[in-house]
């Protein structure tokens, strides 16, 4: 006999209300079977108990998302001051023709901490179904403006060589540029955190109403195996070591965000390289509403 108690408890434990809903549906379809197997239940029918567990799971999920959103806020406020003051000091150094690697590092780490906080906030918003799209008129050139500098720096920290090529970069497109940039950044981060001492190539182009990005990694065979495995594992796997958890989070975020954008991320193998292909739909600028949607808010960072 199926132990529905452990199934629904598992759903509760991982805070996954969707699993609880699926479990509830499954139970509903098999109600007759469970009606005859409820001797152990003393507090009502199995359906009533499962309904109660489902409601608790939904409440727990909501509480978790609210906690994450509030905690993100509590972290972002002081981070605002840290980043702002470090930028002021960098401006002072720059104005006097000086250079401070320590200060630059402090500022960079502050930005990384903020980025991680935003990732958690995005996950919470996706779980709550509150991650709306803000499609704006842009170009790949604009969307990827700082990719080369940002990715080259990160690649050098992992002892990876890096090169980036853009195609049709000046074509006007309509896309949620911030989220599209996040998907590409997360995929690059996942590859760059797993592969060390190798080479990472990124190709991004616009063709046939889609943005296509290929991130390929060459390197140690075991690193490439880890990349393959990471793509196949779901985001709740405990298989990876702590230092690769951020790569796993990046991978999970890139897949969820690409789905929000109507696209997908796929595993790709090319000669001796392993990597990921991102495909995201775009609209031509001519299809954008006149005057651009919410022009005053096109730079708002969600």
């Amino acid at each position, binding site marked *: 006999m199926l132990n529905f108690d452990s199934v629904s408890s598992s759903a509760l434990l991982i805070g996954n209300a969707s699993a609880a809903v699926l479990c509830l549906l499954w139970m509903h379809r098999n109600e007759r079977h469970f009606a005859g197997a409820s001797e152990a239940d003393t507090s009502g029918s199995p359906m009533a108990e499962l309904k109660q567990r489902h409601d608790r799971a939904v409440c727990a999920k909501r509480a978790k998302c609210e906690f994450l*959103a509030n905690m993100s806020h509590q972290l972002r406020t002081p981070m605002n001051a840290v980043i702002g003051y470090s930028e002021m000091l960098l401006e002072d150094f720059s104005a006097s023709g000086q250079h401070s690697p320590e200060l630059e590092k402090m500022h960079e780490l502050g930005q990384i901490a903020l980025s991680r906080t935003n990732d958690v906030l995005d996950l919470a918003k996706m779980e709550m179904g509150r991650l709306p799209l803000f499609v704006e008129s842009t170009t790949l050139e604009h969307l990827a403006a700082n990719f080369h500098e940002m990715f080259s720096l990160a690649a050098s920290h992992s002892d990876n060589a890096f090169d980036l090529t853009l195609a049709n970069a000046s074509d006007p497109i309509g896309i949620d540029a911030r989220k599209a940039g996040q998907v590409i950044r997360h995929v690059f981060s996942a590859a760059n955190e797993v592969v060390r001492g190798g080479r990472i190539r990124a190709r991004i182009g616009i063709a046939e109403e889609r943005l296509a990005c290929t991130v390929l990694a060459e390197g140690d065979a075991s690193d490439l195996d880890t990349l393959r495995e990471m793509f196949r594992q779901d985001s709740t796997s405990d298989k990876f070591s702590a230092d690769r958890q951020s790569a796993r989070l990046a991978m999970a975020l890139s897949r969820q965000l690409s789905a929000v954008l109507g696209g997908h991320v796929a595993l790709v193998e090319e000669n001796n390289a392993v990597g990921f292909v991102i495909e995201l739909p775009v609209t031509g600028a001519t299809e954008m509403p006149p005057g651009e949607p919410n022009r005053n808010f096109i730079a708002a960072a969600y």
Partner: protein
Amino acid sequence: MTKLLLVEDNEMNRDMLGRRLQRHGYTMCFAVDGAEGVQKAHAEMPDLILMDVALGEMDGWEATKLIKGDPQTAGIPVIALTAHAMATDREISVKAGCSEYDTKPVDMPRLLAKIQHCLNARSASPAA
């Protein structure tokens, strides 16, 4: 000299953002909560208001509604600033009458561009 009113309850963020904007040539005045923001909008008649939305008793949106509901201050553009970055913040900012919306930590070039955009729009409007 262009005068900006910064309504921000966090002392460090008020000091940091105020000093950075002064460096870019703006004259700054400050308020520490929504009620003082409304009062300073009247007393100082700034060219633009930067309004933190999480301000305790009277939040930034409520203060913005009062500022926009008064004919004397209705024409002053308001840029809402929030660290929440939640989707609903943008919609609420629009409903409250804010001209722009931005998230914290601020991207200084982007914020400066938005300030200039609002100031230009105000000076170009017939009521200015």
